[in-house]
């Protein structure tokens, strides 16, 4: 990928002449080269924001996860440190491990589907004529722009047991067992609908990004590979994919992180139910913290989530830096 580099024009080599506004040019030039206070003043609001709204809450979360912090402590504010007790409680709870396994299953199913479908749609879009291409891209953008809560509500309606169009379609196709099928009463069915919803929402980003990556692959490469006699699949595997690999990896990392955090869809649609069937880590953390008022356990669960996610984060950053040696 052609990352745009900053121009390395030696600043001191530039000619300077007195300015019209009469301020000493030397001071300003110095500010441009070695900073002075200006760059720090310019980034100060961003740094303060990150410190107060991101680093500080994160530190508080770590703190709470090592304390005995329940409703009483929330009100009185006399939390005691209990070391790793919360983590011990959490890690010895079989329910927690079921949730962790389910989180990974949810993520894996979603990400595989998103990447495969996204790549297929991107490849298809690239081969389409102008009109079809605009149609596909526009509808992708529309699906993408659908607010999460609205899309979740619509999916609830599509899968409504009595009046849902999905049950109607399945019954009409001859699957009589779907007559009034209560999707949200069965764990596996509810899980499947959530996967469908997340995939439907995420494919547009993956497809559009991969498509813009594909457009940067020079057509001559394809042509020469084809002239050499390579089939479509071979061209894809040996020419196209290696060329767009950095972007594929980026989209992959982002989708892993995003599906790991698919909280809203689940919360609005099933609250983690029926039973525990759709509870993944973020839902578990919020349930534990805000419903059972075990803020300490919830924070510990959040921290476990953060640790699990930072593996992906490290991969993502490595990818980022490989592309961007200029940093």
């Amino acid at each position: 990928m052609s990352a745009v580099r900053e121009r390395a024009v030696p600043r001191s080599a530039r000619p300077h002449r007195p300015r019209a506004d009469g301020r000493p040019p030397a001071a300003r030039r110095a500010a441009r080269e070695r900073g002075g206070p200006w760059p720090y003043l310019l980034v100060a609001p961003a740094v303060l924001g990150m410190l107060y709204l991101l680093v500080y809450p994160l530190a508080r979360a770590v703190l709470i996860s090592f304390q005995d912090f329940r409703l009483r402590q929330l009100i009185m504010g006399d939390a005691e440190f209990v070391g790793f007790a919360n983590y011990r409680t959490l890690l010895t709870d079989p329910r927690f491990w079921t949730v962790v396994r389910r989180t990974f299953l949810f993520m894996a199913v979603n990400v595989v589907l998103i990447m495969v479908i996204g790549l297929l749609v991107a490849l298809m879009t690239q081969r389409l004529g102008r009109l079809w291409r605009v149609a596909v891209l526009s509808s992708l953008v529309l699906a993408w722009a659908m607010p999460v809560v609205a899309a979740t509500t619509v999916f609830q309606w599509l899968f409504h047991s009595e009046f849902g169009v999905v049950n109607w379609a399945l019954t009409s196709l001859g699957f009589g067992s779907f007559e009034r099928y209560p999707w949200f009463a069965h764990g596996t069915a509810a899980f499947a609908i959530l996967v469908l919803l997340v995939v439907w929402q995420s494919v547009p980003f993956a497809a559009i990004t991969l498509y813009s990556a594909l457009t940067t692959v020079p057509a001559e490469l394809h042509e020469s590979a084809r002239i050499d006699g390579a089939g479509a699949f071979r061209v894809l595997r040996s020419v196209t994919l290696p060329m767009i690999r950095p972007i594929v990896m980026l989209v992959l990392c982002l989708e892993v992180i995003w599906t790991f955090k698919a909280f809203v869809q689940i919360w609005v649609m099933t609250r983690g139910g029926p039973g525990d069937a759709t509870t993944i880590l973020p839902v578990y953390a919020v349930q534990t913290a805000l419903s059972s008022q075990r803020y300490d356990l919830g924070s510990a669960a959040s921290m476990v989530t953060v640790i699990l996610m930072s593996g992906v984060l490290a991969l993502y950053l490595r990818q980022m830096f490989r592309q961007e040696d200029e940093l």
Partner: protein
Amino acid sequence: MSAVGRPGAAPRREATRRLRRLPLHAGAALTVAICLFPVYWMVTTAFKPSRDIQSTDPQFLPRTWTLEHFRTAVQADGFAQFWRNSLLVTAGAVLLSLVVALAAAFAVARMRWRGRRQFVLAVFIAQMAPWESLIIPIYIIARDTGMLDRLLTLTLVYFMITLPFTVIVLRGFMTTIPPELEEAAQVDGCNRFQAFRRIAFPLLAPGLMATSLFGFITAWNEFAYANFLIIKNQDQRTLPVWLSSFQDTFGTDWGATMAASTLFALPALVIFLALQRHVTSGLASGAVKG
């Protein structure tokens, strides 16, 4: 990279290519249908009379169109209020993050200073921040500082969620604008600020558009924080929370629910579609290339 030579396949390929158009177009049609059907179903349900909605034999086009459900949704308790709240929070967060990010992006793209690398690294990490995991501490901090139930709190949180992305994209755009342009203006007598405002700022328009769009979508959509930080003061709720509680309020009034969903989704859909081109280019230059 080198493919195995198979001479003599050219004429046959010409024929297969033509044949291949059909499944290709079928695939395109299927993609369009799958992408649009939920949106279509939401909008048409909103216009159908109740007896058509509650029928086991769905109507794909409303036989008679009705605005009744929209009336129910708009007249529902606090609709205008929640719309206003959402708009205030969204606009506040987007503006704040644009201003703060523009300054930071300028410092990163145009100036050399100690700590620059570390700052950029911090921004990249912040972009991946586990927001869902910070609800509990932010709830507690907000409670301790008397910031619960206030729209300002949401504005600040959304500002922070959109800030890293905005810095990264604006920085990406800024590095594509040659600094020589600004320097030429400075030579012609502009000061540095004027040079930036007159030369670079207009060229940044697509980047600003892409990032404000992203900020708008994020803030307009956000549910988790809006749901858990606004508790007692229900007047301060935002649209997503209102929509999610709609079914509880209206029982199984799916017509009204779909009308409310339509009204909620409409701004996002319209803006997104209008700025489609910038979305793609913004992503390409910012989120993807870094």
